[in-house]
């Protein structure tokens, strides 16, 4: 009897799906049946998952069917009567992925208007969603987009990143994200007597030179960078092998990461970095971009200048300038995917083409938002356009520097674990930089944290 009661209880709990562990563990396997797209008429609600309003502003700017967006920014009405519903969750701490994953697990059973139609992913975890086995993101060809033809003008590395292991492209992006050194002109004039981008570049063309320039800045009371995290991407995105090899459950810490740890400690101890600012995306970090701050510069991609630096800057436009940093690297990039099971395939295709493939639209985004967009020919034109200048950068044309940087980018070392590794190595070694723990404790803390985040990880290998 007792047994029967318990088994009944368990059966009930499974059926009700009310427990924390309920839900059907089905990845979107709709593709296995051959149908990526729901049959029947085009739905009226397009659900898009993303982590900020960046994509929405891009869609509003270039998608010709956009009528208007509601005041609170959650619904965009289209002229043909359809509505785009935006679901926004913050990217930090894996929140966005968690919410997206939960929704994806219910994708099979959700009503047509509740199904996700499109979602965005960031370079740090794009691999997780373009995975052929997971089969969540619709191959572009299934949507009627031919990458060879329609996306011919895109940068090659963005196409590689958005493809699964078999080379099937499952996403597209409107931006490429080469990073440059953005610096304050007034601080440059005060310290080096010049704010000319080429002369500043000569001072920071490699890390050693940058360090000696940092000493000069320090003598004047300035910091070279705001936080040790500011240089992380320069090292972390130029690793020679992925954090986790395909099919492996072991994390390999790249020697470049150790270089970052050692250099950051050295710079911090030398007083070249503000030790009060602990990581990016914090209030202190935002304040370090204000006119009161003593921070000389940041390594930022185009979106960083538009989306991070510009809103935090409270002085007059034209106070900043860009030049090549010590190392070319890519940071970020938002990929747009069609989600398996969508009932709005036509809209998905249109939006994707409008935002990521149409050169005119991309150029408009570039001019409106200073974004480095995914059109090789367009970026080349604008880089050579003497008349183009960004007001925020005092009339300087940043694409003169972005364009060559973008063409040198290679991205072959992505793994689905990147976001966790990147976030946790920074927070674990933050204690080491602040002098709270020794190197080995920080290593142990990273191992603990990463195994919590990814239960399947069995070991962490450190370089000799």
């Amino acid at each position, binding site marked *: 009897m007792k047994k029967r009661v318990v088994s009944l209880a368990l059966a009930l709990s499974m059926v009700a799906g009310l427990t924390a562990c309920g839900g059907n563990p089905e990845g979107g396997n709709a593709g296995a049946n051959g149908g990526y797209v729901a049959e029947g008429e085009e739905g009226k609600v397009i659900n898009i998952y993303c982590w900020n309003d960046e994509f929405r502003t891009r869609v509003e700017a270039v998608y010709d069917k956009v009528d208007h967006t509601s005041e609170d920014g959650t619904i965009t009405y289209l002229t043909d009567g359809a509505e785009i519903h935006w679901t926004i969750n913050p990217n930090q701490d894996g929140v966005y992925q968690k919410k997206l994953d939960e929704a994806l697990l219910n994708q099979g059973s959700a009503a047509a208007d509740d199904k996700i139609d499109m979602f965005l992913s960031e370079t740090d975890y794009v691999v997780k969603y373009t*995975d052929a086995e997971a089969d969540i993101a619709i191959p572009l060809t299934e949507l009627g987009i031919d990458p060879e033809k329609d996306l011919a003008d895109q940068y090659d590395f963005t196409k590689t990143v958005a493809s699964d292991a078999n080379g099937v492209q499952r996403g597209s992006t409107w931006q490429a994200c080469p990073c440059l050194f953005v610096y304050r002109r007034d601080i440059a004039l005060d310290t080096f007597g010049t704010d000319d981008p080429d002369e500043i570049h000569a001072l920071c063309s490699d890390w050693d030179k940058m360090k000696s320039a940092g000493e000069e800045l320090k003598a004047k009371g300035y910091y070279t960078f705001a936080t040790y995290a500011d240089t992380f991407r320069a090292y972390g995105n130029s690793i020679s092998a992925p954090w986790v090899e395909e099919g492996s459950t072991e994390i390999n810490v790249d020697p470049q990461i150790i270089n970052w740890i050692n250099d950051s400690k050295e710079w911090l101890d030398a007083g070249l970095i503000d030790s009060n600012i602990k990581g990016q995306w914090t209030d202190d970090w935002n304040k370090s971009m204000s006119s009161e701050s003593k921070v000389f510069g940041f390594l930022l991609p185009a979106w960083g200048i538009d989306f991070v630096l510009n809103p935090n800057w409270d002085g007059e436009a034209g106070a900043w300038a860009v030049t090549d940093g010590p190392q070319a690297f890519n940071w970020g990039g938002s990929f747009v995917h069609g989600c398996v099971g969508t009932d709005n395939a036509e809209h998905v295709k249109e939006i994707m083409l409008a935002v990521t493939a149409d050169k005119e639209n991309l150029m408009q985004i570039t001019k409106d938002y200073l974004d480095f967009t995914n059109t090789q020919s367009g970026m080349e034109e604008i880089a050579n356009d003497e008349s183009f200048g960004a007001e925020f950068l005092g009339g300087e044309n940043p694409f003169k520097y972005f364009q060559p940087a973008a063409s040198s980018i290679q991205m072959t070392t992505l793994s689905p674990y990147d976001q966790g590794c990147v976030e946790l190595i920074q927070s674990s070694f933050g204690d080491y930089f602040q002098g709270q723990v020794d190197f080995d404790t920080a290593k142990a803390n990273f191992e603990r944290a990463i195994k919590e985040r990814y239960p399947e990880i069995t070991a962490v290998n450190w370089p000799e």
Partner: protein
Amino acid sequence: MKKTKSISRAKWGYICILPFFVTYFIFSFLPLVDTIRYSFYEYYRSGIRTIGPNFVGFDNYISVMGPDFFTYLKNTFILWIIGFVPQIVIALLLASWFVDARLKIRGEQFFKVVIYLPNLIMASAFAMLFFTLFSTSGPVNSILTNLGLVNGPIDFMGTPTGTRLLVALMNFLMWFGNTTIMLMAAIMGISQDVFEAASIDGCNPRQTFFHITLPLIRPILTYTLITSLIGGLQMFDVPQILTNGQGNPNRTSYTLIMWLNNLLRAPDYGRAGALSVYLFVVSGILCIFVYKMVNRDDEKKPSRRLKRN
């Protein structure tokens, strides 16, 4: 006739309390059973793939019960105790002042509301507020610097002591009002005659407090201790928000529930389930321990009194 009537009344009584039991069964009991069940399984998500559930016996229990478990348990207790001690002391003091007939504090109602107010703020919002207030470029540091009290900004959240004290301060602020009001109710429940008799016998306020008030409110004190202990064991939102889920520096403010949260975020239902079962056992043991301790004291007390008399 009479008999049937009484039976039907009882039936209605059961029907009236049924909704509670049904909701409890569905929303609390079943998940509880499931949690225990999954603690014996390997069951987690890797990316968007689900691994398991595969039965693994006690593997999860063994993997959770490492040295880390005791470190986080210790953290949790330290955070709780440094918040609870000032909380109970201040609450006792305030409660006995407020109800003291001879002090006649004016605006008692007003103060009661004010000290309870922090409890109305969501803990996460409160933590967010403190995070901003005490950040290195925050208002507290600006004030201290402008007053000339410190040279550079103090890194409150950069040291284990600083972070722990902040957590304790927040818990103290949030809960001392609640405790005060509860203790006031307890003290007001004591017959005024006893206090009068004491003052006629020449008791000074301190003696009254230690020899009359304290012993007589012991049951409520016990209740406060138990609820606070269980609440403390489940401490989560304040340190989670204040330290961004990492319990930094060096995981010194990392509590057991923060660990559970991190396991669930993966989500690793197996190990999270095992940890939950451990927590269940620990709180059960604590409850029994405290309860037994207090009851034993209660039994001893009359005999002691008799002897003294």
